[in-house]
């Protein structure tokens, strides 16, 4: 049998199925050294601000634990709560036997050159696991930070919610203010076990010439719930991701929510794919996208493989100041008795709504901002209050720039 490394070597130059191709050789793998970080407040003000914009709470108050990686180096990793483990993946691979039951078990190394790169040039990443029956309602936080100009950051994350557990993660990805160009490749594998509940909220705050290729796969067992949220509202050159979730146990549920804003020069090709493979499984994929002069491809794909499953897809896009919005919702029913639906809309802000608000005393700009804020404020069920507040804050900060 070929080893994973062999497979990765063979896929080294394999283009991704979708999205603009990236020449990996134009990015540097030579990292600089970053020292361990005991106290997050010792970071520069600039770095703290950038990380805060990606959802990180540098005070760590109100967080169950923290993982921070600067370029290639895990500088801070630890849990504040019994039953919650946060470990850099390199340390886990060196010291923990069970990690091999999860490492590259869902994601395929030969998916494309980005997964191959993460396999062959792994720098670090996080393993976050909550033990059986443990319910952690405070969010754990992670930040993958790009600091070196032109650097290629390769991370691998594994998240495990054991049986009957609850875990919420806010994962911020950001680049330092001085970084314009860089490449982030990330593999994330999610394991939601029997009756467990996992929410994963990813907030991106990159630089305008950064390219991003996340590769995520998740599996949800019987009675499990997986909420996956993605927020990207800042200029970035190119993001292409199409995370896949398999619902393999009876009654498993996955919901995916995306809030995207594409500025001029940004290309976002973002979607979600959910396989309904067991009885009574449910899927929902919702996206709210705004182009402000950039390009957005909003994909969604729900595949019903057994009778009695339900799925719904919703892509709503606004074109504010030029740009292209391409909604591609897909549904596949492979047997009798599946219920799948979608609604997609691409348009502009209705003049009627602006005038209605103006007749209540708002100026045209205020009215437009109010409508955009409303458009981006989707109620995501099942999130703890601090996480909800964090998402609202990210939207609030970003929507000002949209206008």
């Amino acid at each position, binding site marked *: 049998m070929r080893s994973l490394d062999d497979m990765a070597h063979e896929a080294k130059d394999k283009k991704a199925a979708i999205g603009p191709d990236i020449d990996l050789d134009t990015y540097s793998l030579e990292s600089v050294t970053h020292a361990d970080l005991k106290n997050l407040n010792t970071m520069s003000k600039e770095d703290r601000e950038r990380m805060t914009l990606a959802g990180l709470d540098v005070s760590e108050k109100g967080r169950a634990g923290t993982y921070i990686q600067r370029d290639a180096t895990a500088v801070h990793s630890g849990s504040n709560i019994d039953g919650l483990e946060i470990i850099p993946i390199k340390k886990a691979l060196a010291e923990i036997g069970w990690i091999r039951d999860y490492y590259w078990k869902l994601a395929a190394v030969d998916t494309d050159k980005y997964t191959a790169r993460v396999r062959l040039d792994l720098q670090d990443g996080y393993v976050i696991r909550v033990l059986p029956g443990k319910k952690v309602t405070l969010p754990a936080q992670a930040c993958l930070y790009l600091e070196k100009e032109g650097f290629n950051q390769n991370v691998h994350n594994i998240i495990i919610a054991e049986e009957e557990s609850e875990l919420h993660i806010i994962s911020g990805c950001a680049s330092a203010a001085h970084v314009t160009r860089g490449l982030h490749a990330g593999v994330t594998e999610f394991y939601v076990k029997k009756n467990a509940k996992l929410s994963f909220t990813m907030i991106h705050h990159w630089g305008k010439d950064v390219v991003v290729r996340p590769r995520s796969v998740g599996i949800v067992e019987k009675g499990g719930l997986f909420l996956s949220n993605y927020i990207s509202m800042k200029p970035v050159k190119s993001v292409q991701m199409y995370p896949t979730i398999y619902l393999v146990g009876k009654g498993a549920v996955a919901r995916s929510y995306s809030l995207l804003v594409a500025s001029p020069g940004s290309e976002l090709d973002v979607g979600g794919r959910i396989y309904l493979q067991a009885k009574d499984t449910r899927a929902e994929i919702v996206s709210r996208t705004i182009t402000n002069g950039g390009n957005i491809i909003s994909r969604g794909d729900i595949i019903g493989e057994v009778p009695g499953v339900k799925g719904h897809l919703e892509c709503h896009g606004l074109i504010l100041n030029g740009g292209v919005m391409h909604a591609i919702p897909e549904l596949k029913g492979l047997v009798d008795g599946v219920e799948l639906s979608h609604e997609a809309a691409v348009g502009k802000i*209705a003049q*009627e*709504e602006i*005038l*209605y*608000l*103006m*007749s*209540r*005393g*708002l*100026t*045209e700009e205020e*009215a437009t901002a*109010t*409508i955009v*804020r*409303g*458009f*981006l*404020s*989707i109620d995501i069920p099942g999130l703890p209050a601090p996480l909800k507040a964090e998402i609202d804050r990210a939207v609030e900060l970003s929507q000002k720039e949209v206008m």
Partner: protein
Amino acid sequence: MLLIEDLQVKLGNKKILKQVNLEIKPGETHILFGPNGSGKTSLLMTIMGYPQYKVTGGRILFKGEDITHMNIDERARLGIGMSYQRPPSIQGLKTRGMVQICANNGVDVDSLAKEINFSDFLDRDINVGFSGGEIKRSELLQLMAQKPDFLLFDEPESGVDVENIALIGKTISRLLERDIHATQDKSKKQLTKERARMGLIITHTGFILDYLTADKGQVLYNGALACMGNPIEIFKQIKEVGYGECVRCVA
């Protein structure tokens, strides 16, 4: 005071108001009657300042200012407010947020909502999935927060269930300062004299007349205001002989 002189309005290529003259003095409330398609809503939308209603002649004065070409938000800030018949819904904007927008500063949304039996709707997106009657209560709640000096009502009672119709009627009466009761300092007559709030109400059913005494009634017919008189008398005539005959007889 509102003064409309020889107003002509086009919607698209269609002339919808041919010659409208109207004066509403401070403290007065007028009722606007007229058959479907006569231009009643168009007149209200023109006063509010909706840009698709193009004023091709005449002018509108409000509080002594010529507002004929003023933006809709400037008119709102000058003190004009409207209760719509079919307002748009706005995804993600909670009714609570809308009421706060109307008030333009701190307002006790919850207690206002209680008055109009609308507490259960505050955390729902504005007008999304609201029934006809719920929309009317939502519109009134917004005007209660906005407190305009001149209120335009487009069929405020249509679609309202029997349980809430009295509430709607009384609320409009209060918004227009029609429910005046003598106080220790001032007589009812004195208070009536001091009343400044003005109103223009479109009604088909006349139901609103059971809850407030309006000063004048007008019939909009063929793009012009055809007659003026006691609103209850006019409504009686319309019911008995229809709009066409009513206009002819009064004229």
